[in-house]
């Protein structure tokens, strides 16, 4: 116990001595938490449309006005032909072409059915899906309106109409900040926790001070614990700062219990610091440690469910995400912060991450050799 106390004293002193590193450790996450969510805004709005109105009737005009007044779309240009509109797509000036055929209104009256063509730039699949989804809803609405206009007005609906009343729970304004900020905070804690730990031990290897420790009677687990605890503390501090920023800058106040958040964080940090320690036992130089952490952290980033939903991954990829601690924390963070989930809802996740933490740390202790 006394040995551990001295080791901790040494680590904290070393960390606080390096003012540059300390500044980077705290400033980088703070600045990123302020800037990143601004960029990571997936709200799909301002979709540019090019309109090819070959009919120029009151109906086509009404339709175009309805589309533009929905708030999701911006008019790029009215063009005389599809070809001109296609040019706009090629130049990224327009995202969707709406083509209203010649004789739209008159044929709608005589043939009772008409088709409007949409051509969507689908390179960005989400934007294409959401944009054409909006348009589908608008057309459905428009359809109901013209039906009501044609059959003479009465108090009763002239035909069976099913009203879909939709509501958005937990995030009624559909704010993207609420979705992204908790996730980004997880990522930043992971980056600092994992990366700093990995680099720290390797630095001792490079400088040669690790040999001095190796010749002392310090036990392997004591050395690892001595490294684990300081970075665990730093992780908790960064997380706290992040929660404050979320509150002050984005007005996000966790709906669920803060104590539960910290409980999960404590377990999670053990796993992620253990991961950093494990990498450091496998690397000889800082460049190698950096390369290895970069390799894994990019996988964590992409597969953790922050940017694309885990639900839409194929089976084998879902199995991989089961082994990625980040994906559990992002999930739990969102559950507790946005929905106010309870202890029982996240119990499974706590157990899994705790198991990961134990495995990673024991592996690191075993793999750390006191002899070279």
């Amino acid at each position, binding site marked *: 116990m006394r040995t551990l106390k001295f080791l901790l004293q040494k680590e904290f002193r070393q960390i606080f001595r390096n003012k540059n590193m300390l500044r980077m450790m705290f400033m980088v996450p703070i600045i990123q938490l302020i800037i990143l969510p601004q960029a990571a805004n997936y709200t799909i709005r301002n979709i540019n449309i090019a309109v090819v109105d070959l009919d120029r009737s009151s109906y086509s005009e009404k339709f175009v006005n309805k589309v533009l007044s929905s708030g999701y779309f911006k008019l790029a240009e009215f063009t005389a032909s599809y070809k001109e509109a296609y040019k706009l797509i090629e*130049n990224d000036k327009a995202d969707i072409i709406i083509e209203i055929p010649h004789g739209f209104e008159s044929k709608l009256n005589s043939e009772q059915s008409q088709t409007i063509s*949409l051509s969507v730039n689908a390179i960005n699949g989400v934007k294409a899906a959401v944009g054409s*989804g909006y348009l589908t809803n608008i057309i459905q609405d428009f359809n109901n309106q013209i039906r009501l206009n044609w059959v003479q007005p009465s108090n009763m609906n002239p035909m069976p109409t099913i009203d879909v009343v939709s509501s958005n729970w937990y995030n009624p304004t559909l704010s993207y900040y609420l*979705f992204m900020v908790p996730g980004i905070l997880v990522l930043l804690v992971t980056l600092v926790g994992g990366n700093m730990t990995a680099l720290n031990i390797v630095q001792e290897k490079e400088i040669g001070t690790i040999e001095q420790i190796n010749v002392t009677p310090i036990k392997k687990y004591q050395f690892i614990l001595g490294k684990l605890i300081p970075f665990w503390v730093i992780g908790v501090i960064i997380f706290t700062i992040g929660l404050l920023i979320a509150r002050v800058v984005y007005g996000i106040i966790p709906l669920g219990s803060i104590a539960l958040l910290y409980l999960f964080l404590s377990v999670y940090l053990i796993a992620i610091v253990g991961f950093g320690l494990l990498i450091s036992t496998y690397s000889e130089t800082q460049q190698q440690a950096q390369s*290895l952490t970069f390799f894994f952290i990019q996988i964590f980033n992409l597969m953790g469910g922050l*940017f*694309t939903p885990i*639900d*839409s991954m194929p089976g084998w990829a879902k199995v991989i995400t089961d082994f990625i601690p980040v994906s559990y924390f992002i999930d739990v963070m969102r559950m507790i912060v946005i929905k106010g989930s309870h202890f029982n809802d996240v119990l499974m996740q706590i157990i899994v991450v705790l198991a990961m933490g134990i495995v990673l740390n024991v592996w690191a202790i075993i793999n750390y050799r006191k002899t070279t």
Partner: protein
Amino acid sequence: MKQFFSFVTKEFLQVFRDRKTLLMLFGVPIVQIVLFGFALSNEIKDSNIVIVDNAKDLASQQIINKIASTDYFKIKKMLPNSSQIDAAFKSGDIKLAIVFPENFYTDLLHTNKAQIQVIADASDPNTATTLTSYINIIIADYQAQLNKDLNIPPEQINLDVRMLYNPDLKGAPNFVPGVIAMVLLLVCVMMTSISIVREKELGTMEVLLVSPFKPILVIFAKAVPYLVLSLINLTVIIILSVLALNLPIKGSILLLYAVSTLFILCCLSLGLLVSTAADTQQSAMTLSLVGMFLPTLMLSGYIFPIENMPWVLRMLSNIVPAKWFYIIIKSIMLKGLGFSYIWKETLILFGMTVFFLTLSLRNFKTRLE
């Protein structure tokens, strides 16, 4: 010239000696292509939903069957009443709840009006919007069928939707150009700057500078291996995306390589610039990771649409070379456009390259402090 080649050989040997770093150089792009190509997509399918069916009649049953038969939804549970919806959402994997009121079908037939309640878990706003619009389509479809059965004329406007360039709405077409930009940036900026700064740190740079060899050629010799590595990487990515992802290159391959080489040169001069600013490997790494990598990830437009950002970030994105390269690559690979469409972006990249190169050559110190 012979001297120059022996220097280039030395650099190659040094690069290939460090296996772990090499693994990263080639491992990162391959893993990313595989992930982006096969694992990551924004397509929403198999979303778990719960249904509260208070009606239990013909119409509600038909609609439920219709919903269950699509790929978009998986009915996880039927809940007896709506008070349990909140708990279902909180426990995690439910994305949507649908509530049928009592007497749904009778109301629909007698008053011609009935309501369905759709409640989305809007933690993820886009998923919520998309799922709600899918339900809308299914219901509208059902209604059209109902009207047809009741012999009510189907006056209506249909939509004929064509998805250009990417009919299956895959994620890969959007991401592959982004991966190319990011990998080239990573190799050229980070690796080049680290390798130059390492010579400074180890002190071997001084030896090179006092040799009769021109200092400027020392630097160029350092750049050559990374230029070659980047071109190999580019080729690997392109072959992978053509063979494994079935993503054909619509435009000219020659043009693609020419523009990529320009981008690589731009990144190499950036790496050179970083190396003149950094004294230790650690600061070179931090500068290129925090200063180059993150802005590229965020502001080049390949993960997040630039047009949604606040104007400060939109302005900032203009000075990120990868943004322009991303536009060019997308135009050539996916849209099959020729040079006349991308000359503006190419000119900007060229201007940036000249700027970075002049700046770094001016700052490059050939003498000891």
